[in-house]
C-alpha cells in the first residue's frame, strides 16, 4: 500500500485505464502539457502522447459533443470539464445527446464516455467556481452519476465509470483533492467499485445519515460527536447518485428508524429531496421521526470567507439535524 492523495488516485485510475485499453483517451482544457488545472492528468501526456491526451481550446460544448461522437465511433473518451460550473455549457451534449442516444436509437449502441468534473466549495472560488450541480444530471434518464468521497473510491469509481458502456458523470470534490488514503501498489490489486452501490462507513443503531462527497467526512464527525452522548449513528456513503443504492438505505432505515440526508449541494430540489421522498414512501412504516436534510441554503455560493463558511454544510449542522430527527 502507498498513501496517496485523492487527486493522485484520479491520476492513477486514468493511467491504469489508458494502459489497459488503447481506446481510452483524454480530452479537456489544459489537461496535457499543464497536467490539468488540479493536476489530475499530470504526466499522462508524456506517457501516452498527444494522440491520447488532447488539450482543447476553451470549447466545452465541443469537448462534450466530441466525446459523444468518438464514443459512438468505438472509442472511450474521458473528458474533463475544469469546474462543474462550466458543465452548463455542455448541457445539450450531455442531456440531449449522450443521455438519449442509446434509448432513442432503440438500443443499437451506447455512449461509453466519462465526464469528470470537480464541484464544491471551500476554496473561496466564488459563485461560478464552487457549485454542486449533480442533481441536474441525476435527473436525466440515461446518465449515471458518481461522487467519490475518498482516494480509494476516486480510483475505483473512475475505473468503473470508464469501463461502463453508458455515459457517466464523475463528480470529484475540490476540497477533497488533498485528502490522503491508501492505494495498493500492484495495479491488479486496485479495485473497481460497482456503480450503484453505497457503503456503510460507520455502523450504528439510532439514526442513519446518508451522505456523499465532502459531506461523508462531516457526517462521520457528527457521528463521533454524538457517540460521546451515547447516540449511535450509522453513516452511509452513497458513492453513486444515479443509480443510488435504495436497498442499502432502506435496510439501514429499517434498523435505525431515523434518517438524515446530507450533501454540500443546495438543499432544495436536491439529491436529498429524492432520497427523502423515496424513503417517506417505501420506508414510511420504519420511520420514527421526520426525515431531515442538510444542504446549502438557497443562495448562490458566496465568495468571502465568513459567507462561504456559513454557506457550506458542516458536522454541526448534521448533528443538529440528527437531534431534530431524534427529538
Amino acid at each position, binding site marked *: 500500500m502507498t498513501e496517496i492523495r485523492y487527486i493522485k488516485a484520479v491520476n492513477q485510475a486514468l493511467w491504469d485505464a489508458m494502459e489497459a485499453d488503447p481506446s481510452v483517451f483524454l480530452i479537456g482544457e489544459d489537461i496535457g502539457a499543464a497536467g490539468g488545472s488540479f493536476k489530475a492528468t499530470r504526466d499522462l501526456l508524456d506517457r501516452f502522447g498527444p494522440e491520447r491526451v488532447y488539450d482543447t481550446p476553451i470549447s466545452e460544448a465541443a469537448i462534450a459533443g466530441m466525446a459523444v461522437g468518438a464514443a459512438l465511433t468505438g472509442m472511450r473518451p474521458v473528458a474533463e470539464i475544469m469546474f462543474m460550473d462550466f458543465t452548463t455549457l455542455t448541457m445539450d451534449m450531455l442531456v440531449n445527446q449522450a443521455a438519449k442516444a442509446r434509448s*432513442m436509437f432503440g438500443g443499437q449502441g451506447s455512449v461509453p464516455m466519462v465526464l469528470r468534473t470537480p464541484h464544491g466549495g471551500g476554496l473561496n472560488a466564488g459563485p461560478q467556481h464552487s457549485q454542486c450541480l449533480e442533481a441536474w444530471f441525476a435527473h436525466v434518464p440515461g446518465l449515471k452519476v458518481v461522487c467519490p468521497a475518498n482516494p480509494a473510491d476516486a480510483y475505483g469509481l473512475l475505473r468503473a465509470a470508464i469501463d461502463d458502456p453508458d455515459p457517466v458523470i464523475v463528480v470529484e470534490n475540490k476540497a477533497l483533492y488533498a485528502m490522503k488514503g491508501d492505494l495498493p501498489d500492484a495495479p491488479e490489486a486496485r479495485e473497481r467499485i460497482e456503480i450503484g452501490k453505497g457503503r456503510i462507513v460507520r455502523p450504528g443503531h439510532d439514526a442513519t445519515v446518508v451522505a456523499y462527497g465532502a459531506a461523508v467526512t462531516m457526517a462521520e464527525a457528527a457521528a463521533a460527536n454524538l457517540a460521546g452522548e451515547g447516540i449511535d449513528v450509522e453513516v452511509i456513503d452513497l458513492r453513486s447518485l444515479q443509480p443510488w443504492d435504495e436497498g442499502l438505505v432502506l435496510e439501514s432505515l429499517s434498523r435505525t428508524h431515523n434518517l438524515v440526508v446530507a450533501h454540500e449541494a443546495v438543499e432544495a430540489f436536491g439529491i436529498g429531496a429524492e432520497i427523502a421522498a423515496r424513503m417517506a414512501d417505501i420506508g414510511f412504516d420504519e420511520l420514527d421521526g421526520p426525515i431531515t436534510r442538510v444542504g446549502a441554503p438557497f443562495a448562490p455560493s458566496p465568495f468571502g470567507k465568513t459567507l462561504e463558511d456559513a454557506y457550506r454544510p458542516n458536522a454541526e449542522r448534521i448533528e443538529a439535524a440528527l437531534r431534530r430527527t431524534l427529538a
Partner: protein
Amino acid sequence: MKLTELADLYRRMLLIRRAEERLQKLFADGQVPGFLHLSIGQEAVPVGVSSALSDRDTVSSNHRGHGHTLAKGVDLTGFFAEILGKATGLCKGRGGSMHVADLSKGMLGANGIVGAGLPITTGSALAHKMQRQGHVAAVYFGDGALAEGVLHECLNIAKLWSLPILFVCENNGWSEFSPTDRQLATNLEKLGKAFAMKYRSVDGNVIADVAAAAGKLVGPMRRYPAPAILECRTTRVRGHYEGDRQDYRDAGEIAALEARDPIRLAAEALAEAGAAPDLIAGIAAEVDAEIEAAAEAALAAPLPKSADILADVYTPAEV
C-alpha cells in the same frame, strides 16, 4: 460522369423523393405521429455526398434528415417503420423522424437540436483519425445552424487538429420562417477563410456537381486528414414542416422552384447523356414498387409495447 453512374445516383435521389412523397401522404392521412420535416428539393446533396462515402464512414444529420439517412443505405422498411413509430423501426419506434439512426451504416443519427450533429461528427472524425483506417466523417447542417456557437467551436477544432471531416451545409435560404440574411452577419465562405479551411460552393441541386465536389474533398482526407467545407445551394420546396402554409414566402420564389428541381435536372442530364427513354420510367417503376412494399410492411407492423418503456435507457449488465 458515366451514364450508369448517373443513373444510379438518379435512382437514389428518386428513392428519397418518392419516400418523402409517400410520407407526405401518410402524414396528411394522420398516420405519422409528431413533426415531419421533408427535404423535397434537396435530394442531390445527400446522394452526391454519400457517393463519396462508405459504410464505415460516419455521418450525422439534423431535423431534415430523411435524405441523409436513406442515402447512407439504411433499410427502407425499418426507415418507414421508425417514422410511423412502429416496433420494427430502425430505432424500435423510440426516435421517429427527427432521430432516425443506423449505427451499422455509420449513420449516427438525425437530430432535433439545431447544430448538435456538428460536435458529434467532429468527435467521430477524431475517432477515425485515431483509428487510422482512412475513414472520414461528414455532417449535414442547414444555414440556420451557422448561427449556433458550437459550429464555430467545431470549425476551429477541426482545423487545429486536422480532422477528416466534411462540413456539408445545405443552404436553402431559410431557417424555419426566417430568411438566412436576417440570421447571419457573414457567410460560410468567409467563415471557411477565417479558419483557413478548404471550401467549395456548388449548386446543390445538380447531382453531378455535388458528387464531383464531395469526391474531390473527401478523397484526399482519407490519407491526409484535414477538414473541408462543402456549401450546397439548394431549395426547400415544402414548408418548414408539414402543415406549414408558407405564407411568408413570395410567389416568385415558389414559382422558381420547379425549374431547379434536382430530380428533373438529373433526368435531363440523363437524357443528355444518352439514356434510353424507358430507362427513367424503368427506374421509377422499380423505386415505386420498393417504396410501396416498405410502406405497406411498416403500416402492418406492430406498435411498440408500453411495457418496454424502460428498455434501453441503460445497457443491461452482462450476465
